């Protein structure tokens, strides 16, 4: 098989590494050496003060933290990695590739990781740390890791797709469609992370009682503006329950506005994009627009909640918003495109009951406000360890 292409750069590993991956013995999930490797990586990355996302990954892959995740698996002794995982990671989230690698390696696989084509410093930092470890204390892990970089190229996609056992595609519908032009082997499977949206529900009274409101706002900011509100996990619609809704909304949005004004840069093209998105929604849906002095926070109130509403979602601070009496009223909006429900001031029990009673087509994660981006091995409705490993019946 051709593994040398002019357009293909190997950042960790070589074409030979990939050749030898075929036939390489898979590991058991949460293999001890793999855990040590991540712990050493964690030590290197946690020191980083320049990039909070690098430090976050460093903190996430501590041995203690991974052992805690291991706790939730009772069938590890019956599982082995599936073989080779080919990861196609998103072009505009720098550190996502590291989490994807972690899931693949922790599940017991060899990994070909396609890095974002754009040069991010974060990628560079993690890559050089990985390289250093693989060439010193962890030469035994080196056969399991290969980092590559290439601009969109169907020949290279074909090559990696045909030899992998699992293909993981991040980056949304268009990327998935493009990648699917490259056939997989007969035994291979695929995990795709399609375009999703997320929602937020807040109890107005709990919000008003909250003493330190700015921690709530900070959490909301991290869930939304921090990623241009363009991550799958970013809430695009806010539901309000409770009694003092108007008072809570006024306070909440004023604070959000103030924080965005201080920290967020809205480029002219984003401003125009938001205006266009608002009119597009207004043309086809019965909505009213909340008045605002500027373009930082745009709020659209739909007259009705239905499954098509989120087709009009946009980013950069563009929110649908609706008052509800019962949590059930959110369900029509939570189609199979809905990924994460973040919440504030709602009992966990009430949310469990909601899922139990209403069986929504969507919602794969329910997490507190501010935690939407926290990566977990259970993601987008997939249990990544189980998805990327084989169960052996004896």
């Amino acid at each position: 098989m051709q593994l040398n292409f002019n357009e293909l750069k190997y950042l960790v590993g070589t074409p030979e590494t990939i050749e030898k991956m075929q036939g390489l013995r898979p590991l058991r999930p949460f293999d001890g050496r793999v855990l040590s490797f991540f712990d050493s990586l964690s030590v290197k990355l946690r020191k980083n003060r320049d990039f909070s996302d690098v430090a976050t990954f460093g903190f996430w892959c501590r041995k203690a933290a991974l052992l805690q995740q291991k706790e939730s698996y009772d069938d590890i002794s019956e599982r082995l990695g599936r073989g080779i995982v080919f990861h196609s990671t998103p072009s505009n989230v720098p550190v996502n590739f590291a989490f994807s690698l972690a899931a693949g390696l922790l599940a017991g696989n060899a990994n070909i990781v396609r890095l974002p084509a754009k040069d991010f410093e974060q990628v560079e930092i993690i890559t050089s740390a990985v390289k250093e470890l693989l060439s010193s204390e962890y030469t035994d892990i080196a056969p399991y890791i290969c980092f590559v970089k290439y601009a969109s190229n169907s020949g290279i996609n074909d090559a990696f797709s045909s030899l992998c056992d699992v293909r993981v595609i991040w980056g949304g519908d268009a990327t998935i469609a493009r990648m699917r032009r490259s056939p997989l082997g007969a035994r291979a499977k695929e995990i795709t992370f399609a375009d999703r949206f997320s929602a937020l529900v807040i109890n107005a009274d709990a919000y008003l009682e909250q003493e330190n409101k700015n921690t709530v706002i900070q959490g909301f900011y991290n869930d939304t503006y921090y990623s241009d509100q363009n991550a799958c996990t970013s809430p695009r619609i806010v539901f309000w329950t409770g009694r003092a809704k108007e008072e809570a909304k006024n306070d909440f949005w004023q604070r959000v506005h103030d924080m965005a004004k201080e920290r967020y840069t809205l480029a002219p093209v984003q401003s125009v994009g938001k205006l266009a998105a608002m009119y597009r929604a207004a043309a086809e849906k019965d909505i009213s627009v909340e008045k605002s002095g500027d373009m930082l926070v745009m709020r659209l109130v739909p007259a009705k909640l239905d499954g098509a509403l989120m087709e009009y979602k946009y980013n950069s601070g563009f929110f649908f918003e609706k008052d509800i009496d019962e949590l059930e009223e959110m369900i029509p909006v939570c189609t199979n495109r809905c990924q994460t429900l973040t919440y504030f001031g709602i009992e966990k029990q009430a949310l469990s009951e909601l899922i139990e009673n209403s069986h929504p087509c969507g919602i794969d994660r329910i997490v507190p406000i501010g935690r939407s981006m926290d990566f977990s091995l259970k993601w987008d409705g997939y249990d990544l360890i189980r998805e990327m490993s084989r169960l052996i019946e004896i």
Partner: protein
Amino acid sequence: MNYSELLEIPPFSLDKREKERILTEKLKQLTQKHIESCAAYRNMMRAVGYDGDKIKNYYDLPFIPVSLFKEMELCSVDKSEVFKTMTSSGTTGQAVSRIFLDRTTAGNQQKTLVKIVTDFTGAARMPMLIIDNPSVIKNRAMFSARGAGILGFSIFGADKTYALDDDMNIDLEAVEAFLEKHKGKKILLFGFTFMIWQHFYKKLLQLDRKIDLSNGILIHGGGWKKLVSEAVSQEEFKQRLTDVCGLWDIHDYYGMVEQTGCVYMQCECGRLHASIFSDVITRRAKDFSVCENGEAGIIEVVSMLPESYPGHCLLTEDEGVILGEDDCPCGRKGKYFKVNGRLKNAEIRGCSDTYAAKFQ
């Protein structure tokens, strides 16, 4: 004042106050008309709580982004009254604008164009050399912006000759025969900025024979995006054309298929001018408030022409600067401005690649 009365007024003769009064009245009427006859537009205006009684000036009217014409059909007349549909010339795979014209709007577009352009060229028809190939206008059912531009400006010319063949090579024989035939006469040249540079200027440069276009007046449009990437400034564009063929009377224009007819012509002082039929407003991105003169902002264009589609108040994706009003040394009243180019694409974060692809 109805539109035919307005057409009797010289196009650059009204000062700020008079123009504001006429534009406000007419644009408010148009807003009301489109609310009544275009359901999608009516919904948009309802969403933002539009109240015509509160509008004292056309600056306060809601403006909609031009990109909406790419994403939905916005039409204010019955489909049976649509006389032609104009499209913007997007590259393959890009969405194109669709603009629905009835006879009134199409007719007014042409009359307006004549009024504006003859203010620069004089009323007499001139022999016309089109710096493009003839196949651009062959498909009459769907007018692309390029074809529409050529056809629109063709009314100023006689004995129309295309300077390029279908492969975009210069048709030297035809050009020389045309120049020989009209020796000593003033001639009109028309084309798109990048086409002129790429397929006319660059080819002329390679020729060993000189052609003389010092009797010509060149009108060109279509934007500078591609020439900016070749690092060619407006001044250099003019100078190089003068050097290679003697052409010196050169006028850029700014216009768009969404407001055909209301072109903004560049005067002898190098400034784009708004006529009495339309106007430009520059706005700040953060809150869409109106910029001061001299301050760069997003260009809004308003026009009295669009009767058959709700395109009378549009926010473009261009950045520009209003340089002044009513006092350009060329003597024309109204605003004069320059266009800096397209708004820059933003680096959007988040995990959906689709968005990034759309803006590349």
